[in-house]
């Protein structure tokens, strides 16, 4: 599990590399995400490569959002595949997160704020 991040103005776009975020990869993800969260206030998490996320994965992403919110920052998600999107809806997290189709849309949404 790796995270490629790229700064677009003041927004950091972090792209997940890997096809699943579950209990076995979630620690790696947290380790990769923490430095990005420390450095940036506005993050777009591109989940386009993931075709499976489980409850541990959702938990880790919620944790990112909470850390960012705590210091006044925000997290937006993009590129959710159909099963991943379904899981977010099942646990009603689509109401908690701003979710976009593409990273461009997510970055543009930051610009509008």
């Amino acid at each position: 599990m790796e995270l490629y991040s790229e700064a677009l103005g003041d927004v950091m776009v972090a792209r997940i590399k890997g096809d699943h975020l579950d209990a076995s990869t979630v620690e790696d993800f947290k380790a990769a995400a923490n430095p990005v969260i420390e450095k940036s206030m506005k993050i777009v998490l591109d989940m386009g490569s993931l075709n499976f996320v489980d409850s541990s994965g959702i938990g880790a992403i919620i944790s990112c959002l909470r850390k960012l919110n705590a210091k006044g920052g925000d997290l937006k998600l993009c590129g959710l595949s159909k099963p991943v999107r379904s899981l977010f809806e099942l646990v009603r997290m689509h109401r908690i997160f701003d979710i976009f189709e593409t990273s461009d849309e997510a970055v543009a949404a930051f610009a509008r704020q």
Partner: protein
Amino acid sequence: MDSNDIKVLLIEDNAGDARLIEEILAKAEGHPYSVTWAQSLTAGVVQLRVETFDVILVDLFLTDSKGLDTLRSISTESPFAPLIVLTGLDDKAVAVQALQEGAQDYLLKSQLEHSTLPRAIGYAIERQRTYDTLKSLSLIDPLTGLYNRRGFVTISAQQQTFAMRTGKRIFLSFMDINQLKWINDSLGQRQGDLAITDTAAVLQKTFRSSDIIGRMGGDEFAVLCIETEPSTDEIIKARLKKNIADYTMAHPRGFRLSLSMGIVFCDPAAGFDIEALLSEAEALMNKSKGTAHVLEKSDKGIQVLMIEDNPGDARLVREMLSESRSAGFALQWAQSLAEGRLFLASRSIDVVLLDLDLPDSWGSKTITEVMKCAPTKPIVVLTGSTSEETGLEAIKYGAQDYLVKGSFTTVTLERIINFAIERKNIGEELRKAREREVAISSRIQQTLLLGSPPSDLPGIEFAAFTVPSQYVDGDFYDFIRYGDSFVDIIQGDVMGKGIPAALLGAAAKSYFLRAHSSLIYARGCAGLPSPDAIIDQVNRYIVDDLMKLESFITLCYARLDAAARTLQFVDCGHTKTVHYCAAEGRCRLLDGVNMPLGFSREDVYKTTTVPFAQGDLFFFYSDGLTEARSPDGDFYGEERIMDIIVRNASLPVDEINRMIFYAAAAFVGSQNFSDDLTCVLVAIRDRNAEPHGETATLITTSALDELAGIRAFVAEFCTRWASPPLAGEPAAALQLAVNEAVTNIMKHAYGGRADGRIDIEACDYAAHIDISLRHRGKDFKRSDVASPHFDGTAEGGFGIFIIEQSVDDVRYSSDGKGNHEIVLKKYKTRQEGEGPWNCTVKL
């Protein structure tokens, strides 16, 4: 999350306010709080359905609900959790109403502080607990929610101690409702109850929440107050009177609420005996009654109420009645409908003479209005019109008779009044008799007509129920079991309604048992009598009675032979039994060749035999089901039943029965059917013999790295091995559920150790796939895992929720030797009304 946490549901659409509240509670000392945030009433209601909360904080003004409606929706959903209302407005009126509607407290958002909110929550929970405890100790009167006599006396003793400490005076008011007996007798129990709950509401408004209010029994109430400012009984009585007037204005009823009251003051320091105070206050009250405006029933003659706005017409009737030489009439005259209602509420009236066109009501509506407040009183309409139509219409609306003004004499008037009273009395008697009959016959049905299906017959499942119609019509069923191999199923319907039909049904049932014993005796050791022999015998017993009563019985007598795998049945003119054949995946109707019981002495009955196999169903029903009609007049018929059975044949038997019933109710547009509706379902389901297709096993370790491989195994099994395969979203849902369950085993059962063993077995059935997960780790129960938070405040707790939402059945079991198993079941066919993930059918 700790189980000692106070679970708070916060229903608040303003994210800023919600965050503020969460912060206050996060910093609060003492108990930790776990807050679940719902952004709308709908979201809140969803939360209340999935878990229980210790306290609910609610903003009354939400995007999807406003004001007290919000409060009512929540208390309907969760009547037991204490509620605190949050509001931005400093609106006393709303606050008071909210408290009356059952909220425990009321907080202004601008005043929320670190100290106030936790304290308010603590108090609300405490008060609710006290209230619950009191209720459980039966100190509370269930009708009004006030203390009952015991509660009043118990709590008053505590109040005395408090009063003594503060040196304040105590006063005790004793009240009763005037004319409650009359309200009960003339307007009915329901109106009587309303008078009692109205009184409770008025008292709660008149006194402070710290005062002790009790319903002492019947129409008597008492209030114990500590005097905070000098008071006299005039002040208290005036306040009570004003509140009664206000309340009556806001809640118009068919009666006039009035209370008598006695008040005693006492200095608690000088000794205090609550019972003595109560009797003293009661005596004072009774004394005041003498001077109060009390109405006693007049004994002289027939009490006539004339509602007529024209003084000329009224005088004429008055003169005619005074000329009457018979029994004698006492006339009350009301000039408007409103005034008429007052008379009806406060006096004993025998008959109403009613002019239809009044200042406050006109036309036939006037009759309806009068009947609303006095349904048992006969009405004679006075009309100026000479046309027959007006009079006939009046009778259609429920009047007993009509008189054309200016064209009747004293004698006609007298006779019509007497007849009207008599007819109404007879009508009432008939109505009561009919109600009694329905009550008796439905009791006969429930106790005598319906047998209970065997619940422990290996490989066979039963479900049976009857929904009685308004006039029970003698549906019955029974089951006779012989060891583990035979069971006889009898489902019949007696032609006719009410008590006669119910009794005939009961008699028929007992004849079956008699036929059995006499035939078994006659045959010696030759085995069970055949169904046709039993029916033949029963017909002999009952045919003469049935013919005399011009009734008959249709029924199906079926014998299930588990060893031979056959159903032998005699179908006596009954509805055609549905046989679902699992191998073919379709239903057929079993045709009978026999006549109903009671047609002829000479009938020869024939048994028909059909074979059955694993997974087959037999459905027996009364014609109340197939002949249920839609509003357009169509019959429900057999096709719809067979359709439901085919599509749901693998569901639990109760579930299928329920689906058939609800589908019929939806078809009719009501759950009240014109005939009894009976459904008996029998399923051949030997769990061990349920034929299954491919099985596959994967043995893995408890290392988290295995998860991806386990998911691939499930996916492969669903698409390549299963037949028919499971693909798309249902397959993804099953993968997700297995992933979550295995993760739980790895983390909780094996505590994160990587060397535990997990056996995963997939088994394919025609209708579903089962995945069994076996392990030897620590046993963990479903209740060990916390409920999820859907508000983004918690990062865990979703696993179990996801599993339960993603598959149709989850079973945990242990063998007591350290082997544990979780079985996840996912159905392949999607049922009607099902969401993308959830397979429960909502009816």
